[in-house]
């Protein structure tokens, strides 16, 4: 009975606060989420063509049915230790808004995890870490069944730095 109650409550809160669905993936043991409506497709990792003179985290470009899209290694972007790509390694192809229109990009992650409903209420602002970790690209932290999911602001994450402006670019 109480379980039933919970479910209806959950559903209600979804409707009221406009819950969003998030696709989560694993990166170095942590679970991260991105807005599922931004996800175009998930594909296995294939060889990329490196682009000269770009930061290390830009793996290169691939051919996605005739369009050239850049691939970003998220481990590298977050400064995590590199691991060799395994069978679960996937590329999540995302639509990124901003920087003069929509763009398609891929991120390399360790594995895809799940899809969760997270309402805005459930999402908490990340604490301020000062200079230790920049929280600009984190939309919020959400607790989903005892686990913490880090919801990413992909527009911010993928547009920042070298992707659009020439900041940090080698000249």
């Amino acid at each position, binding site marked *: 009975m109480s379980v039933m109650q919970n479910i209806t409550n959950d559903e209600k809160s979804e409707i009221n606060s406009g819950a969003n669905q998030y696709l989560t993936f694993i990166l170095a043991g942590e679970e991260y989420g991105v807005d599922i409506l931004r996800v175009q497709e998930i594909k296995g990792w294939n*060889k*990329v*063509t*490196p*682009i*000269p*003179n*770009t*930061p*290390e*985290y830009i793996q*290169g*470009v*691939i*051919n996605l049915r*005739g*369009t*050239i*899209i*850049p691939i970003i290694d998220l481990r*590298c*972007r977050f*400064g995590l230790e590199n691991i060799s790509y395994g069978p679960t390694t996937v590329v999540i192809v995302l639509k990124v808004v901003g920087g003069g229109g929509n*763009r*398609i*990009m891929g991120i390399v992650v360790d594995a895809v995890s799940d899809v969760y409903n997270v309402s805005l209420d459930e999402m908490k602002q990340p604490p301020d870490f000062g200079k230790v970790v920049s929280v600009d690209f984190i939309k919020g932290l959400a607790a989903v069944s005892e686990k913490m999911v880090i919801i990413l602001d992909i527009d911010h994450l993928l547009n920042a730095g070298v*992707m*659009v402006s020439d900041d*940090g*670019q*080698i*000249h």
Partner: protein
Amino acid sequence: MSIDMSQFHQTFFEESFEGLGVMESGLLNLDVGTADVDVVNAIFRAAHSIKGGAATFGFSSVAGFTHVMETLLDEMRDQRRKVTEEAVNLLLLSVDCLRDLLISARDGSPVDAPRVVDMQKKLENLLSDKKEGGTCVDQHSKVEKEHGKGWDIEFIPYVNMLITGNDPVRMFGELSSLGDMSVKVDSSKMTGFNDMNPEECYFSWKISIKTDVSSEKISEIFDWVDGECDLKITQILNESDKELIASNDDNPDHYDGIKNKDDHSHDLPKIEEKRLSSDRRVSSSSVENSSIRVSIDKVDDLINMVGELVIIQSMLAQLGKDFDNSQIMKLRDGLSQLERNTRELQESVMRIRMLPISFAFNRFPRMVHDLSKKLGKEIELKMSGESTEMDKTVMEKIGDPLVHLVRNSIDHGIELPHDRKAAGKPSTGLLHLNAYHKGGNIIIEIRDDGGGLNKEKITKKAKDRGLIKDDESLSEEQINDLIFLPGFSTAEIVSDVSGRGVGMDVVRRNINDLGGKIEVSSFEGKGTTFTVRLPLTLAILDGQLVSVGDETYITPLVSIIESLQIDEENVNIIAGRAEVYKLRNEYIPIVRLHEVFNIIPKNKKLSGGLLVVVEGDGKRAGIFVDDLLGQQQVVIKSLETNFKRMDGVSGATILGDGTVALIMDVSGLIRLSHQYSPSNNRVALDHVKSAA
């Protein structure tokens, strides 16, 4: 049953714009005084079809305006009127006006109403001028009198008017857009229901309309039923509603021709506002012409080739059904046929996108005519190579830069007649536009025989602006190049033609964006030549595949001069760093691709690899690569769509195996190699890695 007319709108507008082009060039060719009947006829026909089309599609403003032009042209055609310079100029202005009207009809944007009214008045005045002075005055006063009153219309259709497809409802609709209208129907002729023929008209109407348009406007609505009805139009004499009339006078669109039937007509404040905010309105939502005309030959070619392709396909399919090793020769034959066919097909499809450059040149006769008149210069325009074909996208983008260059030549290049005479030149200046193919490029030359670039003035200006150092001495070429710097203009007086200092840098940037180049050469006192070099197409490129380490890159074939095996004896190292290669009598800097692109090559010894000698931006360099792989046509894909522009890379393409290969930007690569001496390179990369 109604037909959706809007599906034909696109065609109508395209044809109308074409017609305007015909009218314009015809008018420019018209010799004052002697009317060449053929030319006048051509102009008249163009105007007539625009009018007809506009009336059919309900663009009454366009139809109304064209009607007046047509009347004038008709008189010229019948030689009732002399072709005067005044009339030609007025007609040219009317063409502009009509073009704007058509653009606003197409985009639904507001019309510059006062201009249209003014233009139409001028045309009507010219028309009435033909009669003797007396009538002329009468006409004027009549126009005055008509202004601000209304009309009583008695409209008695004959019984069979409906059979010809005329619908009174439409006419009333049009009438009601002219002003307040009251209609009385006379149904006395109506027969009993049993005797009634639904295809006959039994009604007649009395209409009184409060408007200030002329009686011609009213009767024009009834043009189509001329001879199928009795029509009486009389002026309303009692001026009871002065207030309404007064307010009408203030309206910018008090003239029916301007009204876009109903939608916009009551939106007066908005229209007014827009008109004030930008006196020369740029059409905002200009829908790009999305269709091209293709000659039937090209289409026939294409169909033939597709037919062949189908045959080869079925041949290969049959071969595949029961295949064994004995048929391998047949397969090879089929595949080579397929290859040839695909290439031909591709070429034909590309040719469809090709248009003769006359599309871009067409606007210049008019521009030269107008500008030279304005500036008091005598200029003869000569055009050659108009049939040179180039890609439609390139053509669309090259239009504005070309206009700028031509304006520049007229404004700055060619001198005033008396200056020319003083310099011992004929008073008429010559402006020559020339286009031709050379290599994989299209060359467009804009040559004038004017004063040429004044080197002293340019150097002085550049020094004043701090663009070069005071004690810097430049070669002739470098001085000429200065005019392409941002913020550079030597015009003493800033005119509205040119000289605001924006321009040449933008021209160069636009041309560079297209993958082209612009050069200028000039002889003082003799003239200036601008040479624009453009790629044939933006979509496909002949490329040489080269490999460095594990990577494959594509070098545009057009920029390759030769490829050679490196003979160590010819390599010299300057200051222990910069490597040069002695190629015959030339020293060419060696660019090690693996260093510039920071990849691990198969070998670092020069003797183990190949040198691809390339030219970009007039500079030569030898690119050191591991190996040459083959030549291939590649389809250019943009890196910028989803990523960003990269130095040294002009784009990417997809190879046969589905992987991506980057296309080298040769001139960018040479620039890049200047910035990256090997030691700098290492420092810069460390910096990036720590940032990441």
